């Protein structure tokens, strides 16, 4: 299909539960799986669906995200006929630049929507890791004559008591009811924060909703469409595994899931690479005394100690006699002699001095903040 869809990624999700990990970054900029940032996955999914114009709505702490994306060259989004549009918040006479929700954010970026020429737009949250082909969603959207198509998953891991958005879906795929932050979710379908809509219809809806004083996309505008049946709200089930990175345990589990061969091969396919910013590191070096099993290890690492069930980002150095188990070690960390780590998340550029032991229960990993020395 010829460029018929423009992509828009919203990076302003609330990320309180990611704690220190998002003190200096948005969820979209979360380091993931040894060499990526979370946004790389949704960007790559859009690219592999043939989407060539992508806007990214920034809200707060977006420096690391801007630094990561640069000109968009690594994603091939730096052409004249294609490209990445960074949409930072800005203050105007009647707006402060702080978005009260997705609807507010979309309305503030109406210019991007108006200037695009594609027939459809896909809007997605950035803290979700999933694989779909948006062409299939467009085809189903047309086939079912939907006005908007919401992406959902039946994966039970996504259901959270007290939070989330859940859908009741009829047999013909129409969304009948929506439920927000229920104490216990009643519906098995979790809305994953991504939808497809005709671009001009979205512009029209935004204009009207904001005029009516709404700020929230799903619990305001969308929910009204469902209840009042003003539009046909369709649904598309995302196949395969899917992860929402909305808390420290979810982040930890998502990364660890990729030690599983099947999961890895589902997400990383040779013909559909996940592009990311490059660091031009040399391959990982294993020296005498390296013992590695069940681990994902990025280029630039130097391993002289023991690494089990762990993920090492680029440039991590594990010194002789250090033992790292069930841990995520972000880039350029140095783990000295005799250190023992178990169930830890070390943010970038941390140093763990000789003999330190950090051992946490699996459900509550220890987080060591960026640039810390322990």
């Amino acid at each position, binding site marked *: 299909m010829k460029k018929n869809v423009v992509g828009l990624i919203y990076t302003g999700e609330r990320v309180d539960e990611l704690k220190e990990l998002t003190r200096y970054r948005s969820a979209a900029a979360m380091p993931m*799986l*040894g*060499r990526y940032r979370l946004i790389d996955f949704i960007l790559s999914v859009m690219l592999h669906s043939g989407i060539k114009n992508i806007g990214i709505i920034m809200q707060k702490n977006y420096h690391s995200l801007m630094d990561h994306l640069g000109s968009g*060259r690594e994603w091939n989004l730096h052409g004249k006929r294609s490209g990445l549009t960074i949409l930072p918040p800005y203050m105007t006479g009647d707006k402060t630049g702080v978005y009260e929700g997705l609807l507010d954010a979309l309305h503030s970026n109406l210019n991007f929507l108006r200037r695009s020429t594609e027939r459809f737009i896909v809007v997605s949250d950035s803290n979700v890791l999933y694989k779909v082909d948006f062409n299939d969603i467009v085809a189903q959207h047309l086939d079912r004559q939907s006005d908007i198509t919401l992406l959902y998953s039946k994966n039970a891991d996504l259901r959270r008591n007290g939070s989330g958005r859940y859908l009741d879906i009829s047999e013909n795929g129409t969304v009948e009811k929506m439920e927000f932050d229920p104490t216990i979710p009643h519906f098995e379908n979790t809305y994953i924060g991504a939808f497809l809509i005709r671009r001009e219809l979205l512009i029209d809806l935004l204009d009207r909703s904001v005029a009516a004083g709404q700020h929230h996309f799903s619990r305001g505008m969308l929910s009204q469409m469902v209840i009042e049946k003003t539009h046909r709200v369709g649904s598309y089930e995302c196949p395969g595994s899917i992860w929402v990175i909305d808390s420290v345990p979810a982040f930890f589990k998502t990364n660890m899931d990729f*030690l599983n*061969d099947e999961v*890895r091969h589902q997400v*990383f396919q*040779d013909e559909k*690479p*996940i*592009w*990311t910013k*490059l660091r*031009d*590191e*040399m*391959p*990982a*070096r*294993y*020296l*005498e*005394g*390296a013992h*590695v*099993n*069940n*681990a*994902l*290890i*990025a*280029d*630039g690492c*130097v391993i002289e100690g023991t690494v089990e069930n762990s*993920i*090492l*980002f680029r440039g991590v150095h594990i010194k002789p006699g250090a033992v790292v188990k069930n841990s995520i070690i972000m880039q350029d960390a140095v783990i000295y002699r005799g250190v023992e780590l178990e169930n830890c998340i070390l943010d970038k550029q941390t140093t763990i001095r000789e003999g330190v032991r950090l051992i946490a229960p699996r459900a509550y990993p220890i987080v060591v903040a960026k640039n810390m020395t322990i």
Partner: protein
Amino acid sequence: MPQKKTCVAMLLAGGQGSRLGILTRHVAKPAVPFGGKYRIIDFPLSNCVNSDIDTVGVLTQYKPLELNAYIGSGAPWDLDTTDGGVFVLPPYSRGDEGEWYKGTANAIYQNLAFIAQYNPDYVLILSGDHIYKCDYSEMLSHHIKKSAALTVAVREVPWEDASRFGLMNTDDEGNILEFEEKPKNPKSNKASMGVYVFSFDKLVHYLEADEANAKSSNDFGKNVIPAMLDAGEKLTAWNFEGYWKDVGTIESLWDANMDLLKYPPPIDLHDRSWRIYARNEGEPPHYVSPKGYVQNSLVTEGCEVFGRVTGSVLSADVYVEEGAVVEDSVIMPHSVVKKGAVVRRAIVAENAVVGEDAVIGEETGDIAVVGSGTVVPKGHKLAAGKQMGK
């Protein structure tokens, strides 16, 4: 009209590299993979950009497709700028003339018009078959300070090996008095590295004279340098110190890969002030399974190791199945070593499959080679020093 440049680099990448046997049957030597995630040409290209040289012509003629695709827009080396960049220069037809590159000097001669576009003061001539990190800007400063017509990069080789090289006999100040190609009784141990800085006007003058000489074999070492010495031009030697390895043979290519496993390595690719850039395939981090074992090795992104790997270099996207053994070997990108196979002292080229229980190479003896795209049948044995493939 392009902007004037102080120095333009010309990289001779047209050689067949026939001493690499089956490894260069389908690709030019500079495109041969090295050190897990590099190709040989990454070294001179990265040296150029690290030396602030942003305009590079790459002269190709032998099996150029893979090399051309690899170089692409030059983006991996930051050579995709609007006022310079990397240019692939194959031989081309000019009306009733037009011919293959006859020799190193002729290749540059045929591209003088390319160089002249930038009106450079100096031209750096490089070859695409060495592994080294070199600051060409220091060599250029030396050339300028000495007001030389030509500066030749040299390195001191052990006296007992000297007779295998092209040697520069110099005076105390480094002026070149004589050039000797592989002399029986060496008077010097300063071997030419095949890296030259010419003043552009002198280059034009001597290449035109060389071209007019029907007897010349159009080679820098054999013809141009002697002609310049005869004419009394000022030629200086610039001493390079550091790791330098010709990877023109199977043995030396394997050796240079093994050098990367030494600790500390004789050439530090971890050096952030002198990065070696390479085209990236977008592979995930490598994975070592609970049954995998890796020691004394380099492992690149995209690999999956379920078997035993020691003393080896695994390039991007190599798959070592359970029960397979890889020892003292180089496995190039996208190759698979199947269950129970044993690879020892060998080079397995790109996209090859070593079948189940096959045995490649031996614990001692010469390096065995499996060519690119080759499927080694189940249980097949390839003896030390042998090559197999298409």
